């Protein structure tokens, strides 16, 4: 039989990290059982893409990749414990087998923005693929190809930030400006306090020769977009990542469409200019 795009490849959980103080978000670093699968994966993977993870008996679910290729021979997924599949994976241990299909979908098209200043704005646990993008840009071979790198990242409270250790290292670097914000003041917090749209307004990243990547809860998106427009970012230069319920992940099973576009195949990355062309089936 021809290549079967529904067939999961065998992976193993190599490491888990509890990301948030409330234990609801956990990162899983998966490694490949077969070298050929690993090579095939990394020859295609670009930040912004997602995979279908597969646990027989619990089914499959889509998750954005939260790691850059240079980090190692693993693929990271940061997963919120919220449904049947995610509860199952949260109970799994290092060494357990798991299936993977991917990488799927399109990616943040940074190859089209060489030389540009990059503005990354994330809220809550939607930061996962933005983290992969930032990590990718911090690759010593990649970083010189772009201008300023600004990251604005908001969470409800300090304990809900993901990737706390890596964020600390970003503060120590000169080639990235990280601005973290929490909703309300908290003891010991020395960064921004306020919602992401307001903090973005305050920091006011220049739109000149710049492109923005924005992911977060709908309410954050809703109020951040006008701020970006006011700063001079046109909708064509603001990218986001969409999500919907999926099954096949390859544009066949039907359910993840917005108008004629399938989030899994035509997305998940769209500019707001592209989204404005589609019917509001959200």
């Amino acid at each position, binding site marked *: 039989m021809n290549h079967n795009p529904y067939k999961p490849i065998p992976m193993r959980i190599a490491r888990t990290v509890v990301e948030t103080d409330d234990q609801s978000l956990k990162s899983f670093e998966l490694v490949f059982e077969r070298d050929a699968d690993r090579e095939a994966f990394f020859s295609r993977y670009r930040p912004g893409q997602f995979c279908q993870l597969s646990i027989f008996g*619990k089914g499959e679910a889509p998750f954005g990749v939260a790691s850059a290729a240079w980090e190692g021979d693993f693929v990271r997924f940061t997963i919120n414990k919220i449904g049947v599949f995610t509860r199952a994976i949260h109970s799994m241990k290092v060494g357990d087998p798991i299936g993977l299909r991917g990488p799927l979908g399109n990616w943040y098209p940074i190859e089209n923005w060489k030389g540009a200043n990059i503005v990354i704005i994330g809220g809550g646990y939607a930061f996962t693929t933005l983290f992969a993008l930032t990590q990718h840009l911090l690759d010593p071979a990649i970083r010189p190809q772009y201008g300023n790198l600004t990251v604005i990242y908001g969470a409800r409270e300090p304990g809900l930030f993901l990737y706390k250790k890596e964020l600390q290292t970003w503060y120590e670097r000169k080639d990235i400006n990280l601005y973290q914000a929490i909703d309300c003041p908290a003891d010991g917090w020395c960064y921004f306090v306020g919602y992401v749209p307001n903090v973005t307004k305050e920091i006011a990243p220049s739109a000149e020769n710049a492109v923005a990547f924005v992911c977060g809860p709908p309410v954050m998106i809703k109020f951040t977009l006008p701020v970006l427009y006011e700063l001079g970012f046109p909708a064509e230069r603001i990218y986001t990542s969409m999500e919907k319920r999926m099954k096949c992940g390859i544009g066949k*099973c039907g359910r993840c469409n917005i108008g004629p576009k399938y989030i899994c195949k035509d997305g998940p990355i769209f500019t707001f200019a592209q989204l404005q062309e589609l*019917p509001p089936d959200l």
Partner: protein
Amino acid sequence: MYKILPKADLPRLIEKWMEQATVYAPVRQGDFTKFEPLSDPAQADLYYAANTRYPPKSLFLPQSEVMFRVKGSEFEPTGDEVSSRVVLGIHACDTRALQLLDGVFVDRDYQDPYWARKREQTTLVVLGCANPCETCFCTSVGSGPFDKRGADVMLIDLGNEYVADVRSEKGQVLFDHLPDASQEQIDASRQVQAAAAAKMKKPFETEGLKDKLYNLFESGFWATIQQSCLGCGVCTFLCPTCYCFDIVDEVQRNERVRNWDTCMFRIYSQEASGHNPRPTNTERTRQRIMHKYAYFVDLFNEIGCTGCGRCVRYCPVNLDIRQIIRSAQAWEES
């Protein structure tokens, strides 16, 4: 290439095909017919009920299909066992549907190996409709009762014999040994085709329809037309162009299976967070209609409906897609 097949010779021909292939044809089941593998040519009933109630898409996208047998963490694909098949008596609308679905399953970035294999292994001997039903509207959606697209062979009924319009190499294999049709017979078959199409009423116009539907996206139109809809999904299950599927694990059988799914069910688009982009029948009806008459047109430049009339005939509350399209065309925002 036109061949002539006396009706009396059909059983012998089917028998001959059966030596090489599994032959599927409409077989009576109570008040309906359904495509079944024949064990005896006499089982084939090409005329009893116009379109089979159960759509022949099931021969390519079964209602429930094992995708993998699971052994430990290995997923072993199924499908290789599908071998040569002949589908006899499929109508132009259902053939056209298969061709439209090739756009989804074969022609795009990812090929669906289950669909592709069954399509490759199958020869379609289409029976054109000399007497379309009341509920048929193929001529309104860019097709017709003798639409030959996708047909390996098109049979045209001349009363005592069929003219076989052989259109592909696969079709030639089945009909090569038959005598050629005479020019008179070919002419007669053309008359039958023209007369059948002329008999069909056009229940709606499709000009400007796509744009009209997009303009109606946020209109009260959808809430109005769905009021009697029960959300049972029969329109989508019986639809030859509806192809949405769910993938589920059958743990006791150690199988990963795909089953027909429907945009008419709440859970179809229900997300783990609780959010549902299509929370009521209104949004779901809009999705069903717009997928066929707007999104499909955008994607493939074809209407994703073949006018078979099953959704009209089997809707338990008599919702009629022809009426929905007419209403959409006539709708004016108040």
